[in-house]
């Protein structure tokens, strides 16, 4: 990073924090601190929802995934528009009309305090596990670029995010998200244009090359239950994931609870239904173009500089490197023949993949273990001055928008569903406002501590999705019972959730079912078990009376 990049990054960060604090001033009641006094317009909520979902992991890992695996990951978002329509029709209006602070508060009105406590606990565990991963991703950026230890960088990021989230509450979170989303979009467009511009062939030729390597596979129609991304898993599995995330996860529900009307809340959801897939397409397409770029510019044997050093010191390095260089040269020569002789390029790609895997095996790492480093390596080494700073700002913005929403929602559930409900029921509003600020600071600190461990996990985006999918089936199942099964009782909901979670953990530990299906299957188990218990209870009742 050069001085101009630092200037862009610093100006963006200071601008975000100052703007957010200014817009969030006067959050002096719990209603204002946790729900922005229900004054938000749709565009602020819309971009806040989008920014919250788009984490630094989205930028860093998704581009890398397109590089190694192609664009098929896009299909995971196909269920999102359907989910948004379902939420706009059935879920958001109920939350809004009932005047709740959290999605789980609604469950007490529909079922009882036990169900609310169980589901709140599930949320706290699940989101609590994910928030560290969201913080560790940008720390990874700084570790690669500046060589600073991850512990220092997570601390730095954490202090900034926790600072403005504690100070301004959700109004600050929403308006900082708004600006962060604009910066992300600018960074994303800059990255895409630079990737295309730096590639020495035309866009059409670049797409032919990416396609020949299987990197433009946006639609996979074959159905395989163990396969990761195809149209069916995207539509059904993706829909359940989006339903759980946007409809039952407080970190998103709280965004649209701040709306000044239900229409505004619905518009914010539908904006995401329309805009999310094109945005994801752009991110993945950037990754595919980075792939083409490295067809003409030799990439390192691995994009992880630490692993590269280890490989260089191994005995087999010289032999491996000679084969790697030859394989890359052969692929570059074959790329000129695409699309007339795509077969030769495909064979060369296979040879190159094998050479890359061989390099990884020298250091004892799996192929694709450097997915998270690809995009950053490209940005810092090849992007023009100023743009590097902008993309760094975008990655920081993405991280901050996700983390702020997560610690804000964790604090809200801790205070509203746990502290106020079970520990201190009667206190002045000022007391709960203070508790909310302390809870925000606590979860911020917790995120910083857990982030130290999260960086060692594999492709970060899958880690986040996996953690979510272990719990989302239970969450979505209980809300399906609440909204769509009038006969469901509190006991049915409680045991339904526990049975569903047991089933999900069984599938995770003992089967090869792809994690995206956990949400749909887990939800089915919750609804089925919950319905059965409810029926048994109702059958029991008259005989006892």
């Amino acid at each position, binding site marked *: 990073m050069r001085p101009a990049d630092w200037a862009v990054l610093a100006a963006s960060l200071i601008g975000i924090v100052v703007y957010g604090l200014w817009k969030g001033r006067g959050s002096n009641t719990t209603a204002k601190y946790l729900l922005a006094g229900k004054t938000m317009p749709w565009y602020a909520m819309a971009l806040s929802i989008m920014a919250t979902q788009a984490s630094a992991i989205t930028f860093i890992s998704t581009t890398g995934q397109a590089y190694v695996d192609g664009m098929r990951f896009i299909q995971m978002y196909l269920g999102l*528009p359907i989910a948004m*329509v379902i939420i706009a*029709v059935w879920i958001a209006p109920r939350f809004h009309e009932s005047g709740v602070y959290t999605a789980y508060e609604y469950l007490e009105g529909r079922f009882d305090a036990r169900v609310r406590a169980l589901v709140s606990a599930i949320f706290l565990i699940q989101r609590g596990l994910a928030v560290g991963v969201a913080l560790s991703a940008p720390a990874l950026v700084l570790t690669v670029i500046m060589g600073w230890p991850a512990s220092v960088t997570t601390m730095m990021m954490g202090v900034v995010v926790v600072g403005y989230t504690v100070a301004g509450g959700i109004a600050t979170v929403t308006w900082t998200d708004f600006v962060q989303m604009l910066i992300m979009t600018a960074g994303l467009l800059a990255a895409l244009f630079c990737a295309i511009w730096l590639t020495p062939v035309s866009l059409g030729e670049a797409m032919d090359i990416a*396609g020949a390597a299987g990197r433009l596979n*946006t639609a996979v*129609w074959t159905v395989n239950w163990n396969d990761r991304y195809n149209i069916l898993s995207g539509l059904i599995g993706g829909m359940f994931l989006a339903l759980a995330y946007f409809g039952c996860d407080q970190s998103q529900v709280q965004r649209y609870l701040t709306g000044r009307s239900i*229409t505004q809340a619905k518009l914010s959801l539908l904006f995401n*239904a*329309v805009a999310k897939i094109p945005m994801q397409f752009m991110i993945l397409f950037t990754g595919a173009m980075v792939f083409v770029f490295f067809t003409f510019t030799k990439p390192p044997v691995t994009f992880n500089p630490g692993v590269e050093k280890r490989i260089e010191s191994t005995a087999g390095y010289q032999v491996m490197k000679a084969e790697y260089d030859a394989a890359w040269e052969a692929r570059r020569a074959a790329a000129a023949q695409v699309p007339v002789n795509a077969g030769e390029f495909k064979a060369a790609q296979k040879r190159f993949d094998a050479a890359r895997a061989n390099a990884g095996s020298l250091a004892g790492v799996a192929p694709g273990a450097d997915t998270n480093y690809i995009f950053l390596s490209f940005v810092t080494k090849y992007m023009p001055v100023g743009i590097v700073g902008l993309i760094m700002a975008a990655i920081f913005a993405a991280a901050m928008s996700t983390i702020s929403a997560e610690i804000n929602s964790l604090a809200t559930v801790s205070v509203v569903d746990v502290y106020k409900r079970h520990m201190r029921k009667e206190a002045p509003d000022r007391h709960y406002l203070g508790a909310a600020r302390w809870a925000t600071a606590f979860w911020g600190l917790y995120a910083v501590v857990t982030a130290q461990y999260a960086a060692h996990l594999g492709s970060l985006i899958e880690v986040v999705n996996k953690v979510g999918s272990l719990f989302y089936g239970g969450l979505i199942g209980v809300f399906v019972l609440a909204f769509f099964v009038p006969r469901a009782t509190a006991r049915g909901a409680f045991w339904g959730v526990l049975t569903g979670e047991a089933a999900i953990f069984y599938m995770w530990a003992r089967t090869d079912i792809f994690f995206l299906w956990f949400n749909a299957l887990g939800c089915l188990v919750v609804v089925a078990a919950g319905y059965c218990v409810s029926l048994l209870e109702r059958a029991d009742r008259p005989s006892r009376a």
Partner: protein
Amino acid sequence: MSEERPPFGSWRRTYAAVIFYLILLIVLFTLFTWRWNQ
């Protein structure tokens, strides 16, 4: 247009437009894959 009105006149039509848009995206992705991902 009033701020509180659905974009396509009624919510029903607005939701239908979103689903139509999704179908269009799937068709476009399929054509995209068929044309380039050879």
